[in-house]
Protein backbone atom coordinates (compact mmCIF):
# COMPACT_ATOMS: atom_id res chain seq x y z
CA UNK A 1 0.00 0.00 0.00
CA UNK A 2 1.50 3.23 -1.10
CA UNK A 3 1.19 6.02 1.43
CA UNK A 4 2.40 8.65 -0.98
CA UNK A 5 -0.91 10.46 -1.09
CA UNK A 6 0.60 13.83 -0.17
CA UNK A 7 -0.97 15.57 -3.10
CA UNK A 8 2.26 16.12 -4.94
CA UNK A 9 4.35 17.59 -2.13
CA UNK A 10 6.69 15.12 -0.50
CA UNK A 11 7.91 17.23 2.39
CA UNK A 12 5.79 19.53 4.46
CA UNK A 13 8.90 21.08 5.95
CA UNK A 14 12.57 21.07 5.09
CA UNK A 15 14.82 22.93 7.48
CA UNK A 16 18.46 23.03 6.46
CA UNK A 17 21.31 24.24 8.66
CA UNK A 18 19.23 26.99 10.19
CA UNK A 19 20.87 29.11 12.83
CA UNK A 20 20.26 32.22 14.87
CA UNK A 21 22.76 33.90 17.10
CA UNK A 22 22.00 36.47 19.70
CA UNK A 23 24.82 38.76 20.76
CA UNK A 24 25.70 38.41 24.43
CA UNK A 25 24.27 41.72 25.59
CA UNK A 26 20.84 40.95 24.13
CA UNK A 27 20.91 37.26 24.83
CA UNK A 28 17.57 35.37 24.85
CA UNK A 29 15.28 35.29 27.79
CA UNK A 30 17.83 34.99 30.52
CA UNK A 31 20.33 37.58 29.42
CA UNK A 32 22.92 34.99 28.49
CA UNK A 33 24.21 34.27 25.05
CA UNK A 34 21.84 32.06 23.18
CA UNK A 35 22.30 30.60 19.79
CA UNK A 36 20.57 28.05 17.66
CA UNK A 37 23.27 26.20 15.75
CA UNK A 38 22.82 24.70 12.32
CA UNK A 39 19.60 22.72 12.84
CA UNK A 40 18.56 20.41 10.03
CA UNK A 41 15.47 18.26 9.83
CA UNK A 42 12.67 17.24 7.46
CA UNK A 43 9.02 16.51 7.97
CA UNK A 44 7.43 14.39 5.24
CA UNK A 45 3.87 15.20 4.26
CA UNK A 46 1.19 13.39 6.20
CA UNK A 47 2.89 12.97 9.53
CA UNK A 48 3.11 14.49 12.97
CA UNK A 49 6.45 15.72 14.23
CA UNK A 50 7.07 16.53 17.84
CA UNK A 51 9.59 19.25 18.60
CA UNK A 52 10.89 18.54 22.07
CA UNK A 53 13.50 19.83 24.41
CA UNK A 54 13.76 21.60 27.73
CA UNK A 55 12.56 25.16 28.18
CA UNK A 56 14.93 27.65 26.64
CA UNK A 57 16.45 25.07 24.33
CA UNK A 58 15.38 26.90 21.21
CA UNK A 59 12.06 25.32 20.20
CA UNK A 60 10.14 28.59 20.16
CA UNK A 61 13.00 30.35 18.40
CA UNK A 62 12.92 27.67 15.75
CA UNK A 63 9.20 28.13 15.21
CA UNK A 64 9.58 31.86 15.00
CA UNK A 65 12.31 31.35 12.43
CA UNK A 66 9.92 29.24 10.38
CA UNK A 67 7.40 32.06 10.43
CA UNK A 68 10.01 34.67 9.75
CA UNK A 69 9.07 36.49 12.91
CA UNK A 70 12.76 36.44 13.65
CA UNK A 71 15.41 36.82 10.98
CA UNK A 72 17.60 33.80 10.51
CA UNK A 73 21.34 34.14 10.31
CA UNK A 74 22.00 31.11 8.18
CA UNK A 75 20.38 28.19 6.42
CA UNK A 76 17.27 27.66 4.38
CA UNK A 77 13.69 26.76 5.14
CA UNK A 78 11.25 25.26 2.69
CA UNK A 79 7.64 24.99 3.75
CA UNK A 80 5.28 23.02 1.51
CA UNK A 81 7.87 23.20 -1.21
CA UNK A 82 8.16 26.99 -1.08
CA UNK A 83 10.93 29.13 0.31
CA UNK A 84 9.72 30.68 3.53
CA UNK A 85 11.21 34.09 2.71
CA UNK A 86 10.72 34.42 -1.02
CA UNK A 87 7.16 33.20 -0.95
CA UNK A 88 6.26 34.23 2.54
CA UNK A 89 2.66 35.17 1.85
CA UNK A 90 1.87 32.08 -0.21
CA UNK A 91 3.39 29.96 2.53
CA UNK A 92 1.45 31.62 5.30
CA UNK A 93 -1.90 31.24 3.56
CA UNK A 94 -1.39 27.50 3.85
CA UNK A 95 -0.12 27.52 7.40
CA UNK A 96 -2.22 27.19 10.48
CA UNK A 97 -0.54 28.57 13.58
CA UNK A 98 -1.42 28.04 17.23
CA UNK A 99 0.57 29.65 20.01
CA UNK A 100 0.51 29.03 23.73
CA UNK A 101 -1.35 32.29 24.31
CA UNK A 102 -3.91 34.06 22.22
CA UNK A 103 -2.73 36.48 19.54
CA UNK A 104 -6.09 38.09 18.96
CA UNK A 105 -7.16 41.49 20.24
CA UNK A 106 -8.73 40.36 23.46
CA UNK A 107 -11.66 42.73 23.09
CA UNK A 108 -12.78 40.86 20.00
CA UNK A 109 -15.64 38.45 20.26
CA UNK A 110 -15.10 34.94 18.96
CA UNK A 111 -17.28 35.82 16.03
CA UNK A 112 -15.24 38.90 15.21
CA UNK A 113 -12.05 36.86 15.28
CA UNK A 114 -13.45 34.77 12.48
CA UNK A 115 -14.57 37.86 10.61
CA UNK A 116 -11.18 39.49 11.00
CA UNK A 117 -9.20 36.46 9.85
CA UNK A 118 -11.48 35.37 7.02
CA UNK A 119 -10.47 37.99 4.41
CA UNK A 120 -6.81 37.11 4.86
CA UNK A 121 -7.20 33.57 3.56
CA UNK A 122 -8.48 32.75 0.10
CA UNK A 123 -9.58 29.27 1.18
CA UNK A 124 -11.48 30.37 4.24
CA UNK A 125 -14.68 28.47 4.88
CA UNK A 126 -17.09 30.10 7.27
CA UNK A 127 -19.10 26.88 7.53
CA UNK A 128 -16.06 24.97 8.67
CA UNK A 129 -15.21 27.69 11.17
CA UNK A 130 -18.68 27.74 12.68
CA UNK A 131 -18.64 23.98 12.76
CA UNK A 132 -15.45 24.01 14.82
CA UNK A 133 -16.83 26.68 17.13
CA UNK A 134 -19.72 24.43 17.86
CA UNK A 135 -17.56 21.37 18.21
CA UNK A 136 -15.26 23.13 20.66
CA UNK A 137 -18.09 24.74 22.53
CA UNK A 138 -17.01 28.30 21.76
CA UNK A 139 -19.71 30.91 22.21
CA UNK A 140 -19.51 33.33 19.26
CA UNK A 141 -20.58 36.22 21.43
CA UNK A 142 -17.92 35.83 24.08
CA UNK A 143 -14.93 38.13 24.14
CA UNK A 144 -11.50 36.59 23.86
CA UNK A 145 -10.46 37.94 27.25
CA UNK A 146 -13.38 36.13 28.83
CA UNK A 147 -12.24 32.76 27.52
CA UNK A 148 -10.15 30.35 29.53
CA UNK A 149 -6.69 29.54 28.24
CA UNK A 150 -7.82 26.23 26.85
CA UNK A 151 -10.69 27.88 24.99
CA UNK A 152 -8.35 30.53 23.62
CA UNK A 153 -6.17 27.78 22.24
CA UNK A 154 -9.20 26.12 20.70
CA UNK A 155 -10.13 29.40 19.07
CA UNK A 156 -6.72 29.68 17.47
CA UNK A 157 -7.08 26.09 16.40
CA UNK A 158 -10.51 26.74 14.89
CA UNK A 159 -9.06 29.61 12.88
CA UNK A 160 -6.05 27.52 11.87
CA UNK A 161 -8.25 24.69 10.64
CA UNK A 162 -10.74 26.80 8.74
CA UNK A 163 -8.69 27.73 5.71
CA UNK A 164 -7.48 24.33 4.55
CA UNK A 165 -3.98 24.80 5.94
CA UNK A 166 -1.62 22.05 4.81
CA UNK A 167 0.80 22.45 7.71
CA UNK A 168 -0.26 23.06 11.26
CA UNK A 169 2.37 24.58 13.53
CA UNK A 170 1.66 24.47 17.25
CA UNK A 171 3.93 26.14 19.76
CA UNK A 172 3.34 24.68 23.21
CA UNK A 173 -0.41 24.46 22.70
CA UNK A 174 -1.02 22.17 25.64
CA UNK A 175 0.74 23.96 28.44
CA UNK A 176 -1.99 24.93 30.83
CA UNK A 177 -4.50 22.43 29.47
CA UNK A 178 -5.89 19.57 31.46
CA UNK A 179 -5.63 15.94 30.44
CA UNK A 180 -9.01 15.86 28.74
CA UNK A 181 -8.28 18.86 26.57
CA UNK A 182 -4.90 17.46 25.59
CA UNK A 183 -6.48 14.19 24.68
CA UNK A 184 -9.03 15.97 22.52
CA UNK A 185 -6.28 17.85 20.78
CA UNK A 186 -4.29 14.72 19.98
CA UNK A 187 -7.42 13.11 18.54
CA UNK A 188 -8.02 16.16 16.42
CA UNK A 189 -4.48 16.08 15.09
CA UNK A 190 -4.79 12.40 14.25
CA UNK A 191 -7.91 13.19 12.24
CA UNK A 192 -6.15 16.10 10.60
CA UNK A 193 -3.37 13.99 9.11
CA UNK A 194 -5.63 11.05 8.31
CA UNK A 195 -5.87 11.81 4.59
CA UNK A 196 -2.11 12.01 4.19
CA UNK A 197 -2.24 15.53 2.78
CA UNK A 198 -1.67 17.45 5.98
CA UNK A 199 1.18 17.60 8.45
CA UNK A 200 1.70 18.82 11.98
CA UNK A 201 4.69 20.32 13.77
CA UNK A 202 4.03 20.33 17.48
CA UNK A 203 6.41 21.84 19.97
CA UNK A 204 5.89 20.81 23.56
CA UNK A 205 7.60 19.97 26.77
CA UNK A 206 4.79 17.70 27.84
CA UNK A 207 6.13 14.56 26.25
CA UNK A 208 3.27 12.26 27.17
CA UNK A 209 1.22 13.92 24.46
CA UNK A 210 3.66 12.72 21.84
CA UNK A 211 4.46 9.26 23.10
CA UNK A 212 1.74 7.57 21.13
CA UNK A 213 0.86 9.91 18.32
CA UNK A 214 4.10 11.45 17.09
CA UNK A 215 5.59 9.91 13.97
CA UNK A 216 8.80 11.91 14.07
CA UNK A 217 10.75 13.59 16.80
CA UNK A 218 13.15 16.48 16.65
CA UNK A 219 14.94 17.00 19.91
CA UNK A 220 16.60 20.37 20.42
CA UNK A 221 18.90 20.56 23.37
CA UNK A 222 20.61 23.74 24.46
CA UNK A 223 20.44 25.33 21.04
CA UNK A 224 21.57 22.42 18.94
CA UNK A 225 20.03 19.38 17.35
CA UNK A 226 20.29 16.26 19.49
CA UNK A 227 18.15 13.90 17.41
CA UNK A 228 15.79 13.94 14.48
CA UNK A 229 13.99 11.01 12.98
CA UNK A 230 11.27 8.44 13.65
CA UNK A 231 9.95 8.32 17.17
CA UNK A 232 10.20 4.57 17.55
CA UNK A 233 13.88 4.63 16.71
CA UNK A 234 14.43 7.38 19.25
CA UNK A 235 12.96 5.25 21.99
CA UNK A 236 14.76 2.16 20.73
CA UNK A 237 18.13 3.88 20.79
CA UNK A 238 18.48 4.05 24.55
CA UNK A 239 18.42 1.78 27.53
CA UNK A 240 17.64 2.96 31.04
CA UNK A 241 19.72 1.23 33.69
CA UNK A 242 19.23 1.30 37.40
CA UNK A 243 21.61 0.23 40.11
CA UNK A 244 22.66 0.55 43.71
CA UNK A 245 23.50 4.00 45.10
CA UNK A 246 27.05 5.04 44.31
CA UNK A 247 27.76 1.92 42.27
CA UNK A 248 28.97 3.81 39.21
CA UNK A 249 32.56 3.65 38.01
CA UNK A 250 34.40 6.40 36.14
CA UNK A 251 34.25 4.39 32.95
CA UNK A 252 30.51 3.98 33.35
CA UNK A 253 30.07 7.67 33.91
CA UNK A 254 31.69 8.46 30.62
CA UNK A 255 29.59 5.87 28.82
CA UNK A 256 26.33 7.19 30.16
CA UNK A 257 24.54 9.86 28.19
CA UNK A 258 22.80 10.93 31.31
CA UNK A 259 23.12 10.02 34.95
CA UNK A 260 21.12 10.85 38.02
CA UNK A 261 22.19 9.67 41.39
CA UNK A 262 19.95 9.40 44.40
CA UNK A 263 20.32 8.09 47.88
CA UNK A 264 18.35 5.05 46.81
CA UNK A 265 20.20 4.30 43.60
CA UNK A 266 21.06 5.71 40.20
CA UNK A 267 19.45 6.07 36.81
CA UNK A 268 21.74 5.87 33.81
CA UNK A 269 20.79 6.39 30.21
CA UNK A 270 23.03 4.51 27.85
CA UNK A 271 22.98 4.16 24.09
CA UNK A 272 21.91 0.67 23.08
CA UNK A 273 25.23 -0.14 21.46
CA UNK A 274 27.13 0.72 24.63
CA UNK A 275 25.10 -1.29 27.12
CA UNK A 276 27.46 -4.24 27.03
CA UNK A 277 30.43 -2.01 27.72
CA UNK A 278 28.56 -0.29 30.49
CA UNK A 279 27.66 -3.54 32.19
CA UNK A 280 31.24 -4.74 31.92
CA UNK A 281 32.75 -1.56 33.30
CA UNK A 282 31.48 -1.88 36.83
CA UNK A 283 33.41 -0.57 39.81
CA UNK A 284 34.97 -3.84 40.86
CA UNK A 285 36.09 -4.89 37.43
CA UNK A 286 34.37 -6.85 34.66
CA UNK A 287 34.13 -10.30 36.26
CA UNK A 288 32.13 -9.20 39.26
CA UNK A 289 29.61 -7.34 37.15
CA UNK A 290 28.88 -10.21 34.82
CA UNK A 291 28.57 -12.66 37.65
CA UNK A 292 25.84 -10.65 39.30
CA UNK A 293 22.87 -10.33 36.95
CA UNK A 294 20.77 -8.45 39.45
CA UNK A 295 23.27 -5.71 39.93
CA UNK A 296 21.70 -3.55 37.26
CA UNK A 297 18.15 -3.56 36.00
CA UNK A 298 17.35 -2.49 32.48
CA UNK A 299 14.28 -1.10 30.88
CA UNK A 300 13.17 0.65 27.74
CA UNK A 301 13.01 4.34 28.62
CA UNK A 302 10.00 6.51 27.96
CA UNK A 303 10.36 9.96 26.51
CA UNK A 304 10.38 11.61 29.86
CA UNK A 305 13.24 9.43 31.03
CA UNK A 306 15.29 10.24 27.96
CA UNK A 307 14.62 13.93 28.26
CA UNK A 308 15.27 14.31 31.92
CA UNK A 309 18.53 12.48 31.67
CA UNK A 310 19.84 14.18 28.56
CA UNK A 311 18.52 17.70 28.81
CA UNK A 312 20.99 20.56 29.04
CA UNK A 313 23.83 18.60 27.56
CA UNK A 314 25.00 20.49 24.56
CA UNK A 315 26.77 17.65 22.80
CA UNK A 316 25.14 14.82 20.89
CA UNK A 317 25.52 11.27 22.31
CA UNK A 318 28.95 9.74 21.92
CA UNK A 319 29.41 7.50 18.95
CA UNK A 320 26.33 9.02 17.43
CA UNK A 321 26.26 12.17 15.40
CA UNK A 322 22.97 13.05 16.99
CA UNK A 323 21.16 12.83 13.72
CA UNK A 324 20.12 9.22 13.64
CA UNK A 325 18.25 9.07 10.39
CA UNK A 326 17.22 11.88 8.16
CA UNK A 327 13.53 11.36 7.55
CA UNK A 328 14.32 11.39 3.84
CA UNK A 329 15.86 7.98 4.20
CA UNK A 330 13.19 6.55 6.35
CA UNK A 331 10.82 4.13 4.79
CA UNK A 332 7.45 5.77 5.06
CA UNK A 333 6.07 3.55 2.37
CA UNK A 334 4.93 0.09 3.20
CA UNK A 335 7.01 -2.32 1.16
CA UNK A 336 5.12 -3.87 -1.67
Amino acid at each position, binding site marked *: *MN*DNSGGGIQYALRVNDVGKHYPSDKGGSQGRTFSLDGVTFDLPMGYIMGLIGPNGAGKSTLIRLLLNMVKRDQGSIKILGMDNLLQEEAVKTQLGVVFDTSYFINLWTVDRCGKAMAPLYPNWSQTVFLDYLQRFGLDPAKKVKELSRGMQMKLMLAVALSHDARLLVLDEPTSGLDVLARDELMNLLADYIADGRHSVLFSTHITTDLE*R*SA*DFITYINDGSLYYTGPR*DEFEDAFVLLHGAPGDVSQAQRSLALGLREFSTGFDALVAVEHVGAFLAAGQDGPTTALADPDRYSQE*RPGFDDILRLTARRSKAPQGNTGVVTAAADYDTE*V*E*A
Partner: protein
Amino acid sequence: MKLIISSISGQPIYQQIEQQIRDAVLSGELVAGQALPSLRSLAKELRISVLTVTRAYNELAQEGLLENIQGKGTFVMSQGSERMHEQLLEQVRTNLDRAVNAAMQADVGMDALHDMLDQAAGANPTATG
Protein backbone atom coordinates in the same frame (compact mmCIF):
# COMPACT_ATOMS: atom_id res chain seq x y z
CA MET B 1 -10.33 -7.44 14.46
CA LYS B 2 -9.66 -6.81 18.05
CA LEU B 3 -6.46 -4.98 18.86
CA ILE B 4 -5.59 -3.80 22.33
CA ILE B 5 -2.60 -1.55 22.81
CA SER B 6 -1.23 -0.87 26.24
CA SER B 7 1.01 2.13 26.72
CA ILE B 8 2.28 0.94 30.05
CA SER B 9 3.02 -2.69 29.26
CA GLY B 10 6.67 -1.82 28.56
CA GLN B 11 6.56 -3.60 25.26
CA PRO B 12 6.96 -1.27 22.27
CA ILE B 13 3.65 -0.59 20.61
CA TYR B 14 4.71 -1.84 17.18
CA GLN B 15 5.63 -5.17 18.76
CA GLN B 16 2.27 -5.38 20.47
CA ILE B 17 0.52 -4.85 17.14
CA GLU B 18 2.72 -7.39 15.41
CA GLN B 19 2.12 -9.98 18.05
CA GLN B 20 -1.63 -9.55 18.08
CA ILE B 21 -1.88 -9.67 14.29
CA ARG B 22 0.42 -12.66 14.20
CA ASP B 23 -1.71 -14.44 16.78
CA ALA B 24 -4.87 -13.58 14.90
CA VAL B 25 -3.48 -14.97 11.65
CA LEU B 26 -2.13 -18.13 13.19
CA SER B 27 -5.33 -18.79 15.08
CA GLY B 28 -7.34 -18.34 11.95
CA GLU B 29 -9.17 -15.29 13.19
CA LEU B 30 -7.73 -13.44 10.22
CA VAL B 31 -8.14 -15.56 7.13
CA ALA B 32 -6.00 -15.74 4.02
CA GLY B 33 -6.70 -12.94 1.58
CA GLN B 34 -8.47 -10.85 4.20
CA ALA B 35 -7.73 -7.15 3.99
CA LEU B 36 -6.25 -5.42 6.99
CA PRO B 37 -7.26 -1.87 7.85
CA SER B 38 -5.30 0.80 5.99
CA LEU B 39 -2.29 2.29 7.78
CA ARG B 40 -3.94 5.55 8.55
CA SER B 41 -7.29 4.22 9.61
CA LEU B 42 -5.72 1.77 12.01
CA ALA B 43 -3.42 4.46 13.38
CA LYS B 44 -6.38 6.72 13.88
CA GLU B 45 -8.47 4.07 15.59
CA LEU B 46 -5.73 2.99 17.95
CA ARG B 47 -4.67 6.59 18.39
CA ILE B 48 -1.06 5.87 17.69
CA SER B 49 1.39 7.15 15.14
CA VAL B 50 1.17 6.14 11.51
CA LEU B 51 4.83 5.17 11.40
CA THR B 52 4.32 2.70 14.23
CA VAL B 53 1.64 0.89 12.26
CA THR B 54 3.79 1.08 9.13
CA ARG B 55 6.64 -0.56 10.94
CA ALA B 56 4.43 -3.35 12.29
CA TYR B 57 2.97 -4.04 8.85
CA ASN B 58 6.39 -3.98 7.23
CA GLU B 59 7.90 -6.38 9.68
CA LEU B 60 4.98 -8.77 9.35
CA ALA B 61 5.33 -8.54 5.58
CA GLN B 62 8.98 -9.50 5.86
CA GLU B 63 7.97 -12.45 7.97
CA GLY B 64 5.66 -13.49 5.19
CA LEU B 65 2.48 -13.14 7.16
CA LEU B 66 1.15 -10.12 5.32
CA GLU B 67 1.33 -8.97 1.76
CA ASN B 68 1.32 -5.33 0.70
CA ILE B 69 -0.18 -4.67 -2.67
CA GLN B 70 0.51 -1.27 -4.17
CA GLY B 71 -2.62 0.81 -4.43
CA LYS B 72 -4.82 -1.87 -2.93
CA GLY B 73 -3.87 -2.43 0.64
CA THR B 74 -2.44 -4.97 3.01
CA PHE B 75 -3.73 -8.51 2.97
CA VAL B 76 -3.13 -11.66 4.90
CA MET B 77 -0.96 -14.01 2.94
CA SER B 78 -2.62 -17.18 1.77
CA GLN B 79 -1.82 -19.99 4.12
CA GLY B 80 0.08 -21.96 1.48
CA SER B 81 3.04 -19.58 1.70
CA GLU B 82 6.27 -21.21 2.75
CA ARG B 83 7.11 -18.89 5.57
CA MET B 84 3.71 -19.16 7.20
CA HIS B 85 4.06 -22.88 6.97
CA GLU B 86 7.50 -22.77 8.54
CA GLN B 87 6.20 -20.63 11.39
CA LEU B 88 3.41 -23.05 12.05
CA LEU B 89 5.81 -25.99 11.88
CA GLU B 90 8.04 -24.15 14.30
CA GLN B 91 5.07 -23.80 16.64
CA VAL B 92 4.36 -27.53 16.37
CA ARG B 93 7.98 -28.35 17.14
CA THR B 94 8.13 -26.01 20.12
CA ASN B 95 4.88 -27.28 21.55
CA LEU B 96 5.95 -30.87 21.05
CA ASP B 97 9.23 -30.18 22.82
CA ARG B 98 7.31 -28.72 25.69
CA ALA B 99 4.93 -31.65 25.75
CA VAL B 100 7.85 -34.09 25.81
CA ASN B 101 9.55 -32.21 28.63
CA ALA B 102 6.38 -32.03 30.63
CA ALA B 103 5.78 -35.75 30.01
CA MET B 104 9.30 -36.50 31.28
CA GLN B 105 8.66 -34.54 34.43
CA ALA B 106 5.28 -36.19 34.95
CA ASP B 107 6.77 -39.65 34.35
CA VAL B 108 4.57 -40.20 31.34
CA GLY B 109 6.03 -42.69 28.83
CA MET B 110 6.30 -42.07 25.05
CA ASP B 111 3.55 -44.59 24.27
CA ALA B 112 1.20 -42.85 26.69
CA LEU B 113 2.20 -39.59 25.03
CA HIS B 114 1.24 -40.96 21.59
CA ASP B 115 -2.12 -41.97 22.99
CA MET B 116 -2.65 -38.50 24.35
CA LEU B 117 -1.79 -37.08 20.95
CA ASP B 118 -4.42 -39.30 19.30
CA GLN B 119 -6.96 -38.26 21.88
CA ALA B 120 -6.26 -34.59 21.24
CA ALA B 121 -6.53 -35.08 17.49
CA GLY B 122 -9.79 -36.93 17.96
CA ALA B 123 -11.20 -34.15 20.02
CA ASN B 124 -10.22 -31.51 17.42
CA PRO B 125 -12.81 -31.40 14.63
CA THR B 126 -10.43 -29.85 12.07
CA ALA B 127 -7.62 -32.39 12.45
CA THR B 128 -7.03 -34.47 9.34
CA GLY B 129 -5.72 -38.01 9.12
